């Protein structure tokens, strides 16, 4: 069988591994427009300030020799311009055609383009791939005051890193708090104080309207009319699924490429996984793209198993994030703010715990700040729609752990009898 994978990141790599666990014979071809082996996207901010370099294993998603060992034909540095589902081939930008029996679209996302004037100016950067990071890193010596547009995961992280490099940073966020979808107000306050502690100028409830400057950016003009003098801008307003290829090929698309429970697109030979795919969200109760790494990995595996004909169902995922800003670590999952759910929360001595539970006593979301080590247990509860009625009372205990569970359940779980 000829398997072709478009994209070379988390979903693709996990798909390759899953295929090779079961099938040593089929040919695997990977096509990616980036000329690098798969790397760790979350480390891009670290790359920018030189905490990690491209010569370190730490930066990459897999160790050198991965493609050879997995017998993968990697076509790197070439982009796919067309998918022909009828002829079962793809066309590369050098007009080469690659035939497939099964195709996996794992082409990820592309940076969202905000409606800001002056994005073409020098000193304006995005941070979704190595190219962008490299560019920023080289430009760093020219930047004294950097405005970071968007306080999402990348935005907050790069703001923190730049501040550490003694660059003056202004972080501009449209919402009333940083990391809006991932944290609630109280949780965000922890980050706010961390960011402020690093000397970052935090501007909330505002957005960038335009960038001014002749050749290089000199001024950032906010919607509120405020003007900030800056010689660098990082635009980090998020990514959107890279659905162009699928759309052109006539596959069913929505916000992302629509897939069924088996990660199969509307064409039965074509699968999609990762940030590009629009799969089921357990907490949300509908299909939507969730661009996070663990889900990309899981979808990559599942799509690969289905490509091999193994009939493995994707049970769905939900958003979850782990991030450390300064000295504060937090993990959040699912719904983090709601008026319709039962909310349990607790805050003391730099610790914050919040749980959201629906009327059926299913955990829908949670936030842990600083005392995060048992977070995965809640992850499991959300994932498995666990009835928490008898145990939710102890969720707020700082020493929450296995000791609070019902004995029979605990024994079965720890014996791995309940998955």
């Amino acid at each position: 069988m000829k398997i072709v994978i478009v994209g070379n990141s988390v979903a693709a790599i996990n798909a390759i591994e899953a295929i090779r666990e079961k099938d040593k014979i089929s040919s695997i071809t990977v096509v990616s427009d980036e000329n690098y082996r798969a790397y760790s996207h979350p480390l891009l901010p670290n790359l920018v300030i030189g905490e990690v370099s491209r010569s370190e294993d730490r930066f990459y998603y897999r160790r050198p020799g991965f493609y050879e060992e997995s017998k993968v034909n990697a076509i790197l540095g070439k982009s796919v311009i067309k998918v022909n589902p009828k002829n079962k081939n793809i066309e590369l930008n050098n007009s080469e055609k690659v035939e497939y029996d099964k195709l996996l679209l794992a082409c990820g996302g592309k940076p969202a383009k905000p409606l800001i004037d002056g994005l073409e100016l020098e000193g304006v950067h995005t941070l979704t791939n190595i190219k962008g990071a490299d560019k920023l890193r080289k430009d760093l010596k020219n930047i004294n005051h950097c405005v970071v547009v968007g306080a999402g995961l990348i935005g907050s992280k790069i703001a923190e890193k730049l501040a550490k490099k003694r660059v003056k940073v202004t972080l501009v966020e449209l919402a009333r708090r940083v990391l809006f979808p991932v944290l609630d107000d109280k949780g965000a306050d922890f980050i706010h104080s961390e960011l402020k502690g690093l000397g970052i100028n935090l501007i909330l409830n505002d957005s960038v309207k335009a960038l001014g400057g002749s050749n290089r950016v000199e001024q950032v003009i906010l919607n509120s009319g405020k003007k900030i003098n800056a010689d660098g801008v990082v635009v980090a307003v998020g990514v959107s699924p890279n659905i162009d290829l699928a759309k052109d090929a006539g596959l069913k698309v929505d916000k992302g490429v629509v897939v069924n429970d088996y990660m199969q697109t509307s064409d039965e030979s074509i699968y999609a996984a990762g940030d590009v795919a629009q799969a089921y969200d357990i907490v949300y109760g509908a299909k939507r793209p969730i661009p996070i790494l663990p889900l990309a990995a899981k979808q990559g595996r599942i799509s690969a198993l289905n490509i091999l004909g193994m009939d493995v169902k994707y049970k769905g995922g939900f958003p979850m994030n782990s991030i450390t800003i300064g000295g504060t670590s937090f993990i959040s999952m699912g719904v983090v703010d709601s008026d319709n759910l039962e909310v349990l929360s607790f805050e003391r001595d730099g610790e914050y715990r919040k749980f959201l539970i629906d009327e059926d006593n299913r955990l829908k979301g949670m936030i842990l700040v600083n005392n995060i080590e048992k977070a995965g247990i809640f992850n499991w509860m959300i994932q498995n729609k666990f009835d928490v009625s008898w145990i939710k009372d102890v969720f707020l205990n700082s020493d929450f752990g296995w000791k609070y569970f019902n004995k029979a359940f605990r024994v079965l779980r720890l014996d791995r009898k309940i998955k």
Partner: protein
Amino acid sequence: MKTVKIREDNCIFCHLCEVACIVEHSQSKDIIKAFKREEKPIARCTVEFNYPVSLSVMCRHCDDAPCIEACQNGSMHRDDRGYVVVDSDTCVGCWMCIMACPYGVIKRDTRREMWGLSTKCDFCPDREIPACVEACPNEALTLEEL
């Protein structure tokens, strides 16, 4: 594949599994030095107590380990023996594994200069029987096929 079976009915809350784990993962592997002379490693197992319940919990080495899926740079991986271990040279302390671990058994070691380190049971690669199992005086931890 054999795993540590947790027999909570036998756990006497003596912490000796933690002691053994610390010694095994210390530089000298000498109990006195590990505790009093060197930087004390973090125990990979945790003894929990809620009268009369007590039990030691450590990595279950899942077949479909979510921590491996969640790892952003392949540091969390399955070793030659099939156990889930962390590559401490590459771990960047992003705590994604902690977020994913359904047993809550990965701990944070934040004592390194730049990168945090996910610390978890490595099934004692230098030993035939994990130190905690050997140390448990009441066979509350046993090496078994689960």
